[in-house]
Every structure is written in C-alpha cells, then in structure tokens.
C-alpha cells in the first residue's frame, strides 16, 4: 500500500506564504484538493509528486510502511496538469506508447485503442497515423493526457484540474475514471475548483484553511 504523508508542511515562494502547518495522510480513494486561485493546489500536487520540497515540514512517501526514495517513487505516480503537454509531433497512439514504454510497459495496439476510446477521442485521432497531436483541439489534448494515465495506471494519480477545457460529458468521464482508479486501490489526488468534483471525492483538503 502506498502512503503520502504531509507532516507540518509549510510552503512559501519568496515572501508569498501559501500555507502553514499542513498535515495530511493520504493512502487511498479520491482526495479533492480545493482552494481559491493561487491557494497552491498545483504546488500541493507537485509536493505529493516530490517534484518540489516544502519550505518547512516533511513530505514522506511509503510503500507498505517503508520509505521510498525519490527515484523509487518516481515510477509510481503520473501527472495530468494544464502545463503538461503531450508531444505535438506524435500521434495520440504514439504518445500513449511512449508513456507506457517509459514505465517499462509494452502496450499493444488493442490496449492503446481501448484507453483512447475510454477518454472519448474521435476515431480519426485514434486510427489515423498522420493525425498528429499538434492538430488536436485543447479538449482533445486534455483527454489524451488522461489516456496516458489510464494506459500507465500508476499507483498515484495526480490530476490538476483535469476537467478544464472539457464539456459536461468530459468532466463526468474524468470523475468516473478517477473513481474507478480509486476503487482499484489507486490514490487519486484531484486539484479542482469544481464543487461537483469536490463533493464526489472521499476526502477533502481545503488549502484556504491552512
């Protein structure tokens, strides 16, 4: 079992203090991370990915009670964030295959197409070998990032506003995928401004309170 433990964590960028004395123990289910714009939701996710170090306190990741090194943990999480882009010179399938290979997975065409269909990409974007991501709409790119996570299926899903740029059915699909992953024992951290998404979560961390 994977655990992410925040102990007395404070975070500041220069003189700008985001939060202080935050404690959290995340070990499963969907955890919504909410807060006003600039509250530090994306920062919280990066701390959970151990891409950043806190200004004070400690973020520890464990597997079955044993602390993980940053290198070990790096193979266990996947991130979908607005500033994270898929390769525009590759097709959707090539992007999924690449993400899988980075985790040592050889994904077959069937599995790749299944993931791309699950996120609702149109048939041409899935099958056409000359339909590169640079021609995708913003919403399609957003869906593709989720397909990467589906294909890799990491133990920790870090979703930073995954519903942004998606229509209502797209947002429902994101929630459904997040809940399914959580049911399968994954940790899902969902940074969101959407009340509906926050309500659907098992746990809530409101950064405005710290």
């Amino acid at each position, binding site marked *: 079992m994977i655990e992410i433990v925040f102990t007395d964590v404070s975070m500041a960028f220069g003189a700008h203090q985001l939060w202080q004395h935050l404690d959290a123990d995340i070990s499963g289910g969907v955890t919504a991370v909410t807060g006003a714009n600039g509250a530090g939701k994306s920062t919280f996710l990066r701390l959970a990915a151990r891409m950043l170090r806190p200004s004070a306190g400690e973020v520890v990741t464990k597997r079955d009670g044993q602390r993980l090194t940053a290198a070990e943990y790096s193979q266990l999480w996947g991130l979908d964030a607005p500033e*994270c*882009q898929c390769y525009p*010179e*590759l097709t959707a399938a090539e992007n999924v295959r690449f*993400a*899988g290979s980075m985790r*040592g997975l050889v994904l077959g065409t069937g599995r790749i197409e299944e993931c791309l269909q699950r996120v609702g990409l149109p048939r041409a974007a899935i099958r056409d070998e000359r339909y590169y991501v640079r021609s995708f709409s913003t919403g399609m790119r957003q869906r593709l990032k989720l397909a990467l996570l589906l294909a890799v299926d990491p133990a920790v899903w870090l979703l930073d506003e995954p519903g942004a740029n998606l229509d209502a059915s797209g947002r429902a699909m994101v929630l459904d995928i997040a809940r399914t992953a959580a049911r399968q024992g994954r940790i899902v951290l969902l940074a969101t401004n959407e009340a509906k998404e926050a309500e659907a979560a098992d746990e809530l961390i409101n950064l405005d309170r710290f």
Partner: protein
Amino acid sequence: MNSSIWIAFKGMLRKELCVGFRSRTRWVVMFMFAVTMLACVSLAVGGMGLPVSVQAALLWILIFFAALTGTGQTFTDEAQQGTFLLLRSYGQAQTVLFGKMVFMFLELLLLTLVIVPLACVFLNIDIAQPLPLVAVLLLGLAGIAGAGTLVAFLTLSAKVRNGLFFILMLPLLLPVFLTAIAVTTAALEGRFAAVSWLFGLALYDALLIAGSSVLFDYVWYEA
C-alpha cells in the same frame, strides 16, 4: 540489462527520432550555422593554402560550434513545448539521459557527414589517413554528446541559458577538442597518430559519460 530499462530506453530513443525527423527545426539551425560558418571561413581564406594544423583546428571549431547550437536545445525545446513535465512525469533518469545522449550522437554524426565533405571542398582539405579521422570523429562526437546532454539539463532553468551552456561546455570539452585536433592533424598529414591519443580520448569520453550518468540521477530526482 533489466528489460524494463531496455524498453524505456528504446521508447525514449524512438520518441527522439520521431520528434527529430518530424520537426527538424534544430537540424536546420545546426546545418545552416555550419554551412554559413564554412562559407565565411572559405571566403576569408580566399583560396590560401592553410597549414594542415589550421585546417584540422577549423574543422573541429566548425563541428564544435555547430554541435553546440543544437545540443543545447535538447531540453529547452521540451520545456518550451510544455512536454518536459510529461517527460519528468513518466521518464526514468537514466533512460532519459541515455536516450537523449544516443540521439544527440546520431544527430551529430549526421551533421558531421555533411560538414566534413563540405569542409574538404571549401578548405581544400586532403584526407591522407581516413581511418584515424573516422575514429577521432566518432570519439569526439561521443564526448560532445556525453557532456552536452548533462549540461543542457543543468542549464535548463538558468536565465542566461545559452551563455552558461557554452561556458560550462568549453572546459569540459577542452581535452576532447585538443586531442581531436592533434589526431586530425596527423590524419590529414598522413602520419599515424599515437594510438595512446585515441585511447586517452576514449577514456575521457567514458569518464564524461559515467560522470553524467551519476550526476543526472541526482539532478533529475533530487534537485
């Protein structure tokens, strides 16, 4: 080799090749830089018969600077496109390093295959001993790729990225540069350079690549 690392390395290299062949922007910059510089030198020299040591030095200056215009961009391009976070999210340090390093080596090899024949024409270079020249070119390019990948990553978040990249690369590659010029001079003159020069260069390359590998793990995960 662990099979998952091998799969990841192949995936990384395939991605680099696909992106490189389909975008080609970096290649255009490198090739245009090399051709422009070659034309300038050729015009400046104006048909003068240059000493062989100067020809060898000019050839390596051309390769070195043309290579640096491209190699410095390997992580910058990813950061500018927003794909760096994707790479950081899914990639393992060593596979990213070696995938990019091998691709950079292939890219530089392609560049050299264009530069050397052109330099022979424009600078009236006669190659008396091709085999030592090929060996020193391969070893020299391996050194540039080995150091270039690490330094490109180290300078990624620097504000004066380009300047810093050149400043850091120059001392790292000076031993490669000086050895390569000495061996190339010998190859152009028709003398066999001491094999120890080539062994020394291979050893230095190995140290550069091993050092890059050790440091890259730290900067990728911990920095």
